[in-house]
């Protein structure tokens, strides 16, 4: 039950994109087509879950025992960058088909602040390892949900006659605002 609450909280109530503002760059950048949004989403689920587990272990097995907690930012970002590289190499060797699908999105993920943000949040909230893993999965599912819905909306917008000044980023931001408004209806669910 506790895990269900964490997942619902991460996906709907405190959606990382729409209410915590993490991962806005890919949210605006790769959301013009549903197919690319799905690819990016899959890559994020994969990397976010792995990164949270690895950084969690690093925090509690290395940084805390050695009293090096102030190195957290440096350590986490290096681990995430290394992990992304490793995933890319392994995926290329083991599953070329999956690499074809996710390949272009993997390098972009290093600078996705949602990955580092969720890794830090999982440590800050004093989760145990299982809770942190579930939290990471929930957060990444929330990212995918927001990205997928948003990409669907933007595909429809191609056909509309939008005022010149609003074209591109402004209308995307306003749409995201309305989507965030819809998601704020989930507040108080858990």
């Amino acid at each position, binding site marked *: 039950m506790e895990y269900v609450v964490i997942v619902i909280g991460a996906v709907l109530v405190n959606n990382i994109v729409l209410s915590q503002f993490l991962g806005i760059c890919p949210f605006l950048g790769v959301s013009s087509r549903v197919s690319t949004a799905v690819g990016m989403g899959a890559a994020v689920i994969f990397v976010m879950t792995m990164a949270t587990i690895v950084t969690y272990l690093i925090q509690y097995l290395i940084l805390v025992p050695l009293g090096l907690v102030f190195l957290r930012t*440096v350590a986490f970002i*290096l681990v995430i960058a290394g992990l992304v590289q490793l995933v890319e190499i392994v995926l290329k060797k083991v599953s070329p088909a999956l690499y074809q699908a996710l390949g272009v999105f993997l390098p972009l993920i290093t600078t996705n602040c949602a990955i580092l943000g969720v890794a830090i949040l999982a440590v800050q909230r004093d989760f145990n390892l299982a809770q942190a893993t579930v939290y990471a999965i929930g957060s990444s599912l929330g990212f995918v949900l927001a990205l997928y819905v948003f990409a669907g909306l933007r595909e429809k917008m191609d056909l509309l006659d939008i005022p*010149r000044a609003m074209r591109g980023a402004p209308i*995307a931001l306003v749409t995201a605002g309305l989507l965030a408004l819809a998601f704020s209806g989930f507040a108080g669910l858990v």
Partner: protein
Amino acid sequence: MSVTTMRREFLKGILKENPVFVLLLGMCPTLGVTTSAVNGLGMGLATMAVLLGSNIVVSLAKNVIPDKVRIPAFIVIIASFVTITDLSMAAFLPPLHEQLGLFIPLIVVNCVILGRAEAFASKNTLLSSIVDGAGMGVGFTFALTLLGAVREILGSGAFFGFPLPFLAENPILLFVMPPGAFLALGFLTAAVNQSREKWDAAVRRRARRVREVAATALVAGRTGERS
């Protein structure tokens, strides 16, 4: 570097290549912390400190860092400055540090900073890198403060904490909530686009007039020669 090019490098970050309104970089802190003008200003200055520090070190170390590992090296440099800023703010400005929270360590992944390190500081001299960092930093701070001020005025009826007459009694709460961040930035970006278009059109008109005058003068000169 001459004073004119320096001024151009500095000004481009504020207006023509404003990281927020034009390049759409660093969106997460832009939307996440701008519930008030003070928060926007604080976040902008923290980012500017990191940007200046990393631009200086990257530009000094550009010949030492091997090309293949430059991105990880830049990230370590940036992360060190972020840690310095984070700990200094926790020591000297605890309330602001509390307010900005998670977004201070996340300055590491702010694309503006890595972008300037890669695109500018790793190719240019120390002085121009400092000017570039200052310009981009001021542009980022300006954008965040503007967005924070708009959201604070509409959402809590105050300006830098001072309550405003009518608005303080009738705040539009939506603007301090997450959806308001997207809406306010969307409309501000549209306004910036609109004014830039007007500006460009004015520049084009002026250029055409200069060309016409020059052409008339040329024609007059030629006919004058013949007669």
